[in-house]
Structure formats: C-alpha cells, structure tokens
C-alpha cells in the first residue's frame, strides 16, 4: 500500500532523475530543512497541486489587482497588512497546534473575548501588568484544553466546542452580559502605527519568525511534527506526547491572547461578540497556507502567506465594490479549493 515499492533499492520516485536528489550534507540549510520533517522531502518533490493552485490564485490576484485602481499602492499594502494582523497572530498559534496533530480549536473567539475583557478590566494596574494578566489567562485557558487532548486523547473538535461554550458562558456571566469598559486607557500605545503600520503587524511578523524557528530548531517543535504525523508511533517511542501537546496549546493560547489584547485596544471596549468569527478565520488562514489538517506538515511562514492571500483577495473585492457577502463567499471557495487540492495531493501520494 505504501507509495514506495518494496523491492527496488534506488528509485524513490520514478519520475526523478537520480541527480536531482541532493546529498544530505549539501548545505547546512537544506539539510536542516530536510531533517526537520516539515519541508517535503527533496527526494520526491513533484509538482504539488496545491502549490500550482496557489500560484494561479496569486497570479489572478496580481492581474486583477493591476487592473484595479489603488490596489498596488503603499496605502493599500498597509491596509492589507493591517487587516491581516489580528487573524494572522491567532493563525500562527493555530498552525502550531495543527502541526502537533490536534486539528483545530473552535473555542478561539470566546477565549479572545474573555482575554479582551480581562485586559480592559485590569487597565488600572498599568499596561505591562494588564498584558501579562491577559497572556496568562489566555495561556491557562487554552493549555488546559490542550492537556485534556494530549493526556487523555480527547477529540479536539468536540472538546473545544464544549470549552468554547463554557468560556463564553463564564464571560457573559461575569460581565453580566454587558460591555466591559476600562477605568483608564493604558492601552492607547498599542494603537500606534510606527512607520505607518499598526503595532500588531510587527507582532505578527515577529511571531511568525519566532514560531518558524521554534518549530524547526527546538526539540519540542520537532517532536510536534513527529507526534502530528503518527501519534501511535510517537507514543510507542516514548516521546512526551502529552507534554508537547500542552506546549503547542500554550503557544496557541498566547497567540489568541495577543489578538484579544489588540482587539480590546482597538475597540476600547469588549462585549461577548468581540471575538466574532476569529475561530474560523484563523483556521481558514492555516488551511489556505497548506498546513495539513491531519497534522505533521506545515509551517508558520505558509500560514502568514495564507492569511495575506485571504486579506488581499478581500481587499481586492472591496476595492471593486463587491459586497461583504461576496467576500465571504470567495473566502469559502478558496478554502474549499485548498481542501480539494490537499485531497488530490494525498491521493497521489498514496498511488
């Protein structure tokens, strides 16, 4: 059943000339990538249907963009980046969790909302303290969900739906169902736009770089790729499946909390609906980036690309005067397209 034939020693992929397989020690960089399971193996690089599709979509965006006034302008580029930032930060965390094999969380919006409320309610202690408290609460809530998934193998989807209702319920209960306003606005600095870009954009870029480094260069990050690909093998090998899963979810929690903080600062108040469709927007960005929903494959960089692509398309549709409904529809089609492309890829890999 495996793609590899069992019997002939040299030919991993029939359609690749032998010279195309680079030596492992070719350079520090490639070998590190090859070894870090995330990148597809150089030995059987075929044209990936997903990558072809993405290139086509990107080209379509560029061509349509060129025909659209104001799409290729500095101001619009800033707008795209700015609108990517909030969802993007959360999506980076979602990528880590998806690579580690826990699929998705459907409790993201609620968690971000609660964090935003905590952040606003603690403004009187100063910005630093409020951020620390917000991060701690986000990490605690999310890591706890991860612990149940990592140690007791709970189904992530069912479990996070339950957790989402619980978190949302507690938030509504404590806030009394009303909007939370800060006593003082210590957060105003978070809405600064150094070099014309919101602070959140810099956090997104730094977060992507940090996550990428973490996934490739640390023991925990590399364990995530292994656990995500084959949890049974990881368990039998004695890898710390539970602990690594909790770490992945803790990182996710920190990312959600950062998004919650920026949402709160931007809106200057928080109600139960603040999180909006953050859960699904983040998942869409991760999927469009090509991270495998089944775990074991993907990268933070790809997710950044996915988030930017979604923003660029929404922006383009907005500039051409399409309604919000059409924008949502296109986003749906994009995710659907990626899911189909990934399926085709998996089917090919098996054949």
């Amino acid at each position, binding site marked *: *059943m495996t*793609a590899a*034939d069992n019997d*002939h020693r040299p030919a991993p992929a029939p359609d690749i000339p032998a010279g195309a*397989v680079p030596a492992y020690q070719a350079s520090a960089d490639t070998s590190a990538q090859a070894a870090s399971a995330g990148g597809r193996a150089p030995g059987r690089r075929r044209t990936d249907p997903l990558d072809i599709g993405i290139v086509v979509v990107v080209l379509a965006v560029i061509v349509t963009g060129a025909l659209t006034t104001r799409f290729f302008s500095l101001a619009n580029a800033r707008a795209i980046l700015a609108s990517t930032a909030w969802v993007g930060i959360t999506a980076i965390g979602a990528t880590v969790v998806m690579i580690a094999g826990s699929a998705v969380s459907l409790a993201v919006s609620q968690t971000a909302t609660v964090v935003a409320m905590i952040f606003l309610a603690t403004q009187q202690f100063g910005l630093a303290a409020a951020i620390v408290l917000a991060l701690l609460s986000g990490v605690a809530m999310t890591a706890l969900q991860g612990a149940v998934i990592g140690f007791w193998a709970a189904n992530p989807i069912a479990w996070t739906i339950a957790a989402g209702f619980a978190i949302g319920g507690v938030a509504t209960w404590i806030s009394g169902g009303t909007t939370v306003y800060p006593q003082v606005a210590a957060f105003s600095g978070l809405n600064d736009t150094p070099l014309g870009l919101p602070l959140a954009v810099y956090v997104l870029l730094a977060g992507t770089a940090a996550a990428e480094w973490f996934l490739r260069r640390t023991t925990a990050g590399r364990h995530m790729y292994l656990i995500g*690909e084959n949890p049974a*093998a990881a368990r039998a090998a*004695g890898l710390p499946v539970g602990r690594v899963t909790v770490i992945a979810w803790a990182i996710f929690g920190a990312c959600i909390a950062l998004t919650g903080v920026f949402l709160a600062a931007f809106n200057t108040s928080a109600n139960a609906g603040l999180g909006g469709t953050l859960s699904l927007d983040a998942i869409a960005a991760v999927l469009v980036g090509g991270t495998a929903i089944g775990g074991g494959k993907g990268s933070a960089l790809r997710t950044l690309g996915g988030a930017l692509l979604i923003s660029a398309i929404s922006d383009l549709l907005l500039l051409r005067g399409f309604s919000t409904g059409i924008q949502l529809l296109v986003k749906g089609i994009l995710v659907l397209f990626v899911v189909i492309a990934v399926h085709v890829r998996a089917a090919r890999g098996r054949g």
Partner: protein
Amino acid sequence: MSDVTSAAAGAPARPQVSVTGLTRGFGGVPAVQDVSFTVGAGEIHALCGHNGAGKSTVVKMLSGQLAPDSGRISIDGQPVRLGSRQAAQRLGVALVDQELSVVPALTVLDNLLLGDVSAPLVNRRRAALARCAQVLADLGLDRLRPQQPLSELSIGERQLVEVARALSQNARLVILDEPTATLSDAETEYVFAAIRRVAARGCSVIFVSHRLSEVLELCDTVTVLRDGRRIATTPASELTVSDLIVQMLGEAPHRLTAARPPDSLPGDALRIEHLRVPGRLTDFSLTAQAGRVYALAGQLGSGASDVLRALAGLHPQATGTVRLRDRAVPFRSPVGAAAAGVAFVSNDRKSEGLFLDKTIAANLLATRLPALGRAGLLSSRRERQAARTLAELVGISGHRLGEPAAALSGGNQQKVFVGRCLGRDDVYALLLDEPTRGVDIGGRTAIHRLLRAAADAGLIVLFASTELEELLELGDVIITMRETRMVGRYEGGADGAVLMRDMTHGAHAA
C-alpha cells in the same frame, strides 16, 4: 466456490500463466530485467529473492499495479494487459498484499466482499453469509462470526481474513506476497491447507515468502531472482534451504555467535518480577544481564510480545515490579519507560514504528533529539553528524538521508527503526517485537549483526519472535512461552524441535 472445474488437478504441465521477458525500470534504473517463467494449472510457484531482487515489482506487474516496460504476461495462452488491480481481478488474478488492506471498521463479511468485482450490486445477504462461513471454515476460522467487526480480531486473524478474501474470488491466479509474515505456525498451516485446496481446483498460485522452509514445504517450483534477473527455476523437491540461500545471495551466510562471554554485572541487569497483564500475560519473571541477547519464543497470543509491550509502557493495566540498573522502571507509561532507559521496537513498523512521510534522517533522530542540543535547542551540526553516523552504522547510504522513510524497502525501514534505538547513552535495554518481520535474508542478517553488536556494547537485548531460525541464531538465552505463560528456559543452545514443542503443545514449567 465449487463451480470451478477441478479437472486439471493431476496434470500441472499445461502452463496457465506465463511471463516472458518481463522488464521494468524506475528512473533509468532497472528493477526487473528479462524475467520469464511459467506457472501451470494447479502449480504452487515460489518467487524468492534477496532485498531489491525485484520480487515485489514482478508481483505488482502481475497484479496490474505497475505496467511493464516490455515483456508479456499471458493467461491461458492469451496475452493480457493488466491496466489496474481491478482489470487484473476481472482477468482472474487475486492478490494478497504484503501490507494489510482489510478495513478494521467493517465486519468480516464486508471485508470478504470488499473489492470483489464479481459481487452483485445488490447484495444477496444470505448467499453471501453462507459463502463467507464456508470460506472461514476452510481457513480454520470457524470461531469468527461473519458479522464480527474486524477491529476485534488480532493482527494474525486479520491477515487470515485477507487471505480468505483472495482465495474466495475463484481466481485463475492467486498471488500471495508474504502472507504468513504475521501468522503463527498453526495459522500458517491453515493458510497452506487452503492454498493447496485452491491449487487442487486448478488455480495457479504464486507464493512470495522469506521463510524458506515454508517455501520448500508448500511449493512445487521455486524461481529465484537476484538483482532483477531470474537466477534459476528449480523443482522444490531438488532444493534445500541452503541451496536456496546460495541462489539468492550467491554465497552461504555464516552463523552469528557471541563475541565474548556475557558480562555478569548484577547491577546492570533488568529484573522483571511477577509481571502480569490481565488476559494476556500470567506471572512472568526474568533477570536479564547486560551484554546478552534474550529471546522470547512464542506464537501470537503466547504473551511473548506482551512482555515487551508491558515493559515499554504500552499495557497500562500491567502489574509487577521491574528494575533496570537498580532503578524502578515506571512501566505504566511509555514516557516513564523510555526515561528509565527502555527502547522499544514494535512489530508494527507502519502504524507504530516509523514516521514514513518524514526523512530517513528525521526517523533516525526521532527519539534522541534532546541529546542533540542544549536546553531544548537543536544543533544542526550535531544533528547532521549523528544522522550520518547512524546511517553508516545501519548500512544506509548517507545520500539517502533526505529521502522520506517511505521510499525505503521493508528491510531498510526496519534497519532505520532499529538504528533509531542504537548509539544512545540513555538506553540500557533494547526490546524488539519480531525484529525481522517481513525482512529479506540479507536485511535480516544485517539486523541480527546490529543486535549482536548492541549486546556486545553492553546493552540488554530482549526480543520476541515466532521464527525458530531467528530464535536459535540470535538468542543466548531462549525462553519459550505459550498461552500467556513461560514454559521453558534454554541456555547455550537448544533443539528446534524442543522449542517448537514448547511453543505449540508443551507442558507448563513450574
């Protein structure tokens, strides 16, 4: 089942299946070159060969999974084009694959009907049930109910269901690729009886196996391949196991023995006391010294493999005391067992072993990442070094380290799996469940050599196996097991017949 004429049983001379000049390459590298042989009606024809000899490629061409570059396949004198597995099945070719392809979520009956192109669109349930019961009875599986979900069955029983599926298709050619790799000897006997029955009905059978004594016992003719070419086709009655090995390897293999008298440092020992797993293992005790190889001889269900799984932390309900180097092993979790210095190689390489989509390097390093850096940060230089050293140790070209593990042959995958546990300072006991399952003779010798070297380097090696040759070749101490209990213990040589008796119908030792 009975609508096939059984006229040909006595006359195996007429070639029913003939292969002429079959050739197939991959990316310019020939995997099979100019292979020809014929299989008569009612003949059981073995295909043997060392790793990379081209057996699987021939099987894939015969079953429609690969198209030949040149050459011809004829059935009943008619040249056929086998464009896909379905097309091959329609032309009367049934295949039992090396890897399990049954579906655990479905029932036994559904699995038997699965992929049978002759099955009617609307299932006639009662007829199917009757046929299913007959097929199961033929394979000695009367104890299974057709409505039982496959997930309740052991690996061996699932393999038997897979065999039953192929044998029930009224095929003209049945190909069995390593069908007995996961089976106990009793189960193997049932499969052989069923194969003989199918052959007696006039069906041609191609049997691929690494178990040479089985090949000689079952088959009429043996074709040996080496490096993609046919070396010889000989009647089985004129062959011995060593003849076959010489044909396959081109040289006679030598026996492995302990390089030095085993250490007896009592502090280094693995002490297992009263290990129990409910329903699977009854009161197992053993003290294993560093530097020696301990073999657990037992069929499926004997408890041999459960000793290893319990020690590796994969039986959370296990009880007893286990001490390694005078420290208690927390064997109720795999993480605890690994931290205490236990490394485990499962018998299920695909689902519980390798990370097949990951590179060979990533697989070799999978369990030693913490040792390759400081404070959780990895050093690329040390990673590269470690991967290269390990590749050299297990005998895989350093140039292949970047390829996915799935691209390796079964034997080489197993080398990677074993290599993953070697050369680590924090491993004291190496546990292997069927260390050479589905591995060819060459790979097997290499793995045995690795294990012997590991023991010589001071490791405790404990393995479970159902294969006599392997037990005798590798074990310094052999412990026989049957029906969840230890039966006997042999040191310094044992008689194969005695071991077999212990494993199958011996009396329990005190």
